[in-house]
């Protein structure tokens, strides 16, 4: 299901994420900078419970297509960047494990930082994804929900 080219690697799947795999893949001989963002599940809850895990639900196809749009928009804004990888995990993710990883390489670090931050900010606003908080004896949708935004409207 994943979208893979020489420069773009987008994946939404139930497999555990490896930040190292993405960062190593993003290295290019002409790119001296790789910036990686790793979003891990954390203990703070929107519903007041002691969270054990999070469960992410989406359509892998729709989510990957939207993430690919995010990558394309990042390339419009920062044409210098080299490789971009964005992986999002779905299904059950235990506390402290990565739920989303972004890696961007660039000849210089400023563009890599800016593009990586744009990518994760825009993924959070534009990609269909629903997070369920799981605690001992119960679960509920996260109460942080926001309307979906189009990538062109960011």
């Amino acid at each position, binding site marked *: 299901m994943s979208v893979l080219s020489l420069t773009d690697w987008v994946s939404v799947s139930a497999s555990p994420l490896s930040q190292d795999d993405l960062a190593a893949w993003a290295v290019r001989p002409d790119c001296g900078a790789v910036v990686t963002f790793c979003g891990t599940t954390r203990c703070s809850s929107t519903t007041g419970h002691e969270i054990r895990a999070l469960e992410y639900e989406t359509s892998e196809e729709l989510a990957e297509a939207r993430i690919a749009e995010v990558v394309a928009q990042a390339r419009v804004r920062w044409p210098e960047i080299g490789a971009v990888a964005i992986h999002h995990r779905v299904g059950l993710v235990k506390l402290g494990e990565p739920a989303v990883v972004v890696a961007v390489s660039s000849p210089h670090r400023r563009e890599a930082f800016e593009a990586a931050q744009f990518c994760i900010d825009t993924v959070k606003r534009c990609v*269909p994804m629903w997070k369920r908080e799981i605690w001992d004896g119960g679960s509920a949708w996260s109460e942080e929900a926001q309307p*979906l935004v189009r990538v062109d409207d960011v």
Partner: protein
Amino acid sequence: MARLLLLGPAREAAGVRHDEIEGDTVAQVLGHCVARYGDAFAAVLAQSQVWVNGDVANVGDPVGPSDEVAVLPPISGG
């Protein structure tokens, strides 16, 4: 007739992720959804976006058996 994809709270409210629904426009399909799944689903639908084949759709857009109508409630990703 169109293929239906319900995600997150929409899937939960309807009790199904995939379905096939009568209707020749997005509006007709959604009307049949509310009739089939009830008030809890209608409440989620009122806050949701509707896409056809991966793009944002208008309620008047025509749909056929090969089209996928997706209901996407507010998101909470990452």
